[in-house]
């Protein structure tokens, strides 16, 4: 795949005219997907997909295109050249774009990680045997993922990795559920079985009858996976500089009214774990760490070079849509073993579900509690709770109501597969809140 990409790039760049600036990005995967319901196989299959994106700039006009590749160099080079010609015809018709950013060259990068993942034919036996006797619903996704970037200014970037994830829910007879993700690059059968066994033990905690709690404000602990769900909202009308400038960010109050969040809350884009590509579609390399919110104070948003040009700012080389790729929330001082004691009486939430902004200007997010969520009294788990809707503002739950943050952060991989398998992840601890609004 790398050889195909490099040969295509070499082939097409030699065809450019002097005034043309071209970037190429590759998104490819060789994946297996097996969908499981009730610990039985619902659907199973393989997907070999390879898309190349072209970004052509000529005379301050820009057009982009993408197409699937077959893997046959001659066929693909012809297709890519046809697309280049189409882009040339189109740019001639378009209005000028004053905020165009040209690729200017810079550092190159190459990451090629080989892992050990089960063969497609062996995966059914390896996964399913350990599941028998439990009601498990989920998705196995495995295989190799590729990302490439090259531009006419001379940059080259390559990132390839083997990865697998089993993202699943265990369900008991009363339809209560526990969620977990087993993910990595090197499959060890024993580790998988141990992880599944731990989830089965957690499911047993849901065996007692659920209680219904009334709408109201509650002391609440939200575990790392639930906090990741909240933080992922910040990629949507959130910490994007473009969203701020166009009045569409939930963080406007922090900038315009100097509102601060809790000093316990710090949030950054951080690529130091090396698991996520840090180059963008222009071939620019993000700084290893960008402080976004530090001890409650807004320090920066994600700024693409295009946004920087439009508003006279300095780019921090975000992708053009300015979404978070490898965010990390700072840990605190509450040991996980002390969480229940510190909570006292209140609600313990493992996961959240179907979040959306309910009031963007007010920073209010609504969603549902889901999976292993419990009522806790005097530091002791008493019973699972029936699902509740929450509707509260991050200006409160990461602000005045944030009482403590745990000492351990967990990596929550993005297991999304819209269009292609994601490489992104969110690393975050759990949070203890003095108050959290449950509304229905």
């Amino acid at each position: 795949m790398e050889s195909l990409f490099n040969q295509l790039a070499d082939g097409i760049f030699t065809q450019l005219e002097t005034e043309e600036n071209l970037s190429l990005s590759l998104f490819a995967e060789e994946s297996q997907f097996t969908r499981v319901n009730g610990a039985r196989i619902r659907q199973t299959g393989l997907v070999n997909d390879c898309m190349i994106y072209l970004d052509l700039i000529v005379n301050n006009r820009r057009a982009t295109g993408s197409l699937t590749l077959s893997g046959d160099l001659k066929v693909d080079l012809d297709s890519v050249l046809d697309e280049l010609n189409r882009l040339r015809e189109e740019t001639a018709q378009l209005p000028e774009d004053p905020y165009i950013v040209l690729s200017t060259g810079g550092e190159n990068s190459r990451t090629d990680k080989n892992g050990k993942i089960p063969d497609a034919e062996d995966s059914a036996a390896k996964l399913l045997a350990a599941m028998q006797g439990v009601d498990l619903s989920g998705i196995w996704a495995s295989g190799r993922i590729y990302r490439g970037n090259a531009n006419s200014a001379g940059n080259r970037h390559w990132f390839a990795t083997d990865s697998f994830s089993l993202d699943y829910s265990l369900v008991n007879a009363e339809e209560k559920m526990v969620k977990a993700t087993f993910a990595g690059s090197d499959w060890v059968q024993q580790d998988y079985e141990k992880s599944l066994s731990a989830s089965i033990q957690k499911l047993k905690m849901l065996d007692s009858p659920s209680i219904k709690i009334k709408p109201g404000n509650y002391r609440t602990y939200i575990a790392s996976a639930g906090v990741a769900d909240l933080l992922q909202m910040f990629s949507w009308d959130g910490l994007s500089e473009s969203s701020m400038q166009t009045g569409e960010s939930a963080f406007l109050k922090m900038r315009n009214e100097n509102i601060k969040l809790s000093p316990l809350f710090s949030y950054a884009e951080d690529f130091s774990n090396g698991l996520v590509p840090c180059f963008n579609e222009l071939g620019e390399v993000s700084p290893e760490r960008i402080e976004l919110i530090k001890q409650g104070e807004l320090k920066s948003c994600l700024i693409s070079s295009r946004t920087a040009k439009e508003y006279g700012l300095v780019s921090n080389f975000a992708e053009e849509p300015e979404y978070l790729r490898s965010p990390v929330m700072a840990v605190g001082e509450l040991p996980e073993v002390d969480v229940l004691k510190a909570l006292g009486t209140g609600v313990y939430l493992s996961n959240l579900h179907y979040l959306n902004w309910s009031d963007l200007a007010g920073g209010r997010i609504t969603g549902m509690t889901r999976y292993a969520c419990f009522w806790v009294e005097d530091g002791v788990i008493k019973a699972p709770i029936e699902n509740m809707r929450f509707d509260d503002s991050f200006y409160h739950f990461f602000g005045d109501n944030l009482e403590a943050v745990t000492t351990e952060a967990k990596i929550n991989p993005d297991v999304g597969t819209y269009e292609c398998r994601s490489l992104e992840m969110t690393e975050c601890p759990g949070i203890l809140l003095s108050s959290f609004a449950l509304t229905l």
Partner: protein
Amino acid sequence: MDLTKLLEQLDVKADWIGLRYVDETTTYRWVRDGKPQSNNRSRSKGVMVEVLVEGQFAYAASSNVGIRSVQSAAEKAVKMARASAPYSIHQFTSEARPVATGNYNSPHQKIENSVSAGEINDLLIRSCETLKVSEKIVSTNALARIVNSDQLFVSSNGSNIEQQFLMVTTGSMAVAQEGSVVQKRSDSGMRARSWQIGMESLDENRMMNDSRRVGEEAVELLTAEECPTGTMDLILAPDQMMLQIHESVGHPLEIDRILGDERNYAGWSFVRLGDFGKLRYGSDLMNITFDPGVPHELASYNFDDGGAKAEREYIIKDGILQRGLGGIESQIRSGVPGVANFRASSWNRAPIDRMANLNLEPGESSVDDLVSSVENGVYMHSNRSWSIDDYRNKFQFGCEYAKLIENGKVTKTLRNPNYRGISNSFWNNLKAVGDKDSFEVYGTPNCGKGEPNQVIRVGHASPPCLFADVEVFGGEQ
């Protein structure tokens, strides 16, 4: 693409083989504040080989459609099916893939190439200029999205289907700001103006009229009162009924969800298999149809992706649940009647139960009748926010724009209108349904579901509807 010849050349042993080829081009043009943001065309084409071996379906999809690649894909699919068969959720036969031949061409007058990239950009720039009705408008957006999709399906038991679609989405949106108050208004919500149509949809008069109204309403919202909080009557305009139907009728009635396939992702349903034919889903006025034949509605088609012929069916009639939104595999697994809605987003995803065109049939009340019957209530337009629980029961939706109704008359504009409810009781409080004259057709290209995930097109048509005793509230004070 000669898919029949490709099928004939394959040399694998399977109880059934199908080839599904998709060649889809999506052109997206977006202008913000009069400056081009995106002029992108994406073309994705590939083939999915599906085989049935020992009762288990398995697939292998590839962007390489040459015979060697497809042969290799078929061989791998057979091996996977065989390895998975001992763990299969159901032992299927080729009954799950009926034989069908035919075609479909979506209705349109002007093909994509009839309007140039430059002309579309000019139109979008003028739309932005028209949106900027005052200095209080701080951001303007206009977009056009055009999709051309060719889909072929052949199978070893004789299916041969070709369907071609041309679909256009237009949208405009303005953000208004005054001090710390920021309001957003669009024409009918995110990408709701999506239809099977040609470039005649890019009608300058309509687009400019819509843009002017959108800009004016965005400014109007800046000084509007906050939506009141309380339990009251609620009228939903057709562009919000779209979301209400989608989330609280469509998704809960997908049979694969009821069977538990979605539990790890989007959840399941408050509806059980035993409810079909019995459950009172809503009031007597509630009539919901799966209708693949509405001209120009976004998800009209003749065959689903398993080869089943698509026909109009009542899903809910006079408030009683009749049948589910499930294709043949789900019908076989559940024993519940369904519809032809086994659909995939593209060649690289396997079909699953997806709602398509799901409509609320018109009633007898004019819009004036609806409004004049309300003593204290709100009339909400255009979806802005949506969230619902994993059983599709407890929901909370927000809209862009609303009007207060007092003693049978529309009085003042309201901002940040939201409401919440529980699906079954909400629909049983359906008090009145607008008539044929108020019936409007919308759609969205962005319904997400499934593992692996896929985004698909849906259509929703409805008149305005009146609901009683709804919990309504405004924004953060």
